[in-house]
């Protein structure tokens, strides 16, 4: 039942991300006016439990969601199967998760 589990994980992460994406779109549209600066971004995020939790959850969900989506593409368009597919997916998922959490630490963690 691998496919059923992946389907559930894909849809669950989609549902988790729905409000987060809406928030992200809103913040982008709000923050882009007058250009971006490191001060402006970091002032909002540094030491904030809310942004830390939100972006942390976002990164975890997107790592799962994007990996399953890429797996579908690799399976269907590139005909990959078996261990090759599994290794690529784990690498991709782990890579996104690590890079994403590092980014969260970078913008939320104390300087």
């Amino acid at each position: 039942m691998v496919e059923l589990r992946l389907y559930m994980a894909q849809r669950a992460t989609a549902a988790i991300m729905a409000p987060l994406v809406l928030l992200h779109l809103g913040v982008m549209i709000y923050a882009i006016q007058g250009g971006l600066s490191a001060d402006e971004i970091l002032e909002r995020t540094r030491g904030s439990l809310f942004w830390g939790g939100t972006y942390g959850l976002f990164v975890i969900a997107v790592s799962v969601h994007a990996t399953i989506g890429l797996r579908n593409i690799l399976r269907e368009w590139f005909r990959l199967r078996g261990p090759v597919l599994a290794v690529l997916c784990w690498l991709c998922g782990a890579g996104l998760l690590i890079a994403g959490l590092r980014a969260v630490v970078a913008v939320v963690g104390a300087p």
Partner: protein
Amino acid sequence: MKAHRKQPLYFAFLLHRLSGLGLALFLPFHFYVLGLALESHAALDRFLHWSELPLVKFAEFGLVFLLALHFFGGLRLLALENLPWSNRQKNYAAVAFAVAFFVACGYLLRAI
């Protein structure tokens, strides 16, 4: 393109898949740029300064469009799979596309 694919809901599928792929490929870069803040304010600022270029602004519009497209298209799919069936899938897909474009234009107007 194969003839049997020339129908609106195939295009909805294709846009959803390609926007997802685009976003997934963009994510490592996005995380890398934010990670610059670990080095210093200045490192992040140098990059953000570069993002003032008109071409980069337009690329950002494209990314916001991809995100909005994947978001609204994804909402349609969640509804399709989890709510009682509706025969208006073509209408919903068209609305998702239009709203995504509207949102991305909203971003572009504030960015320039």
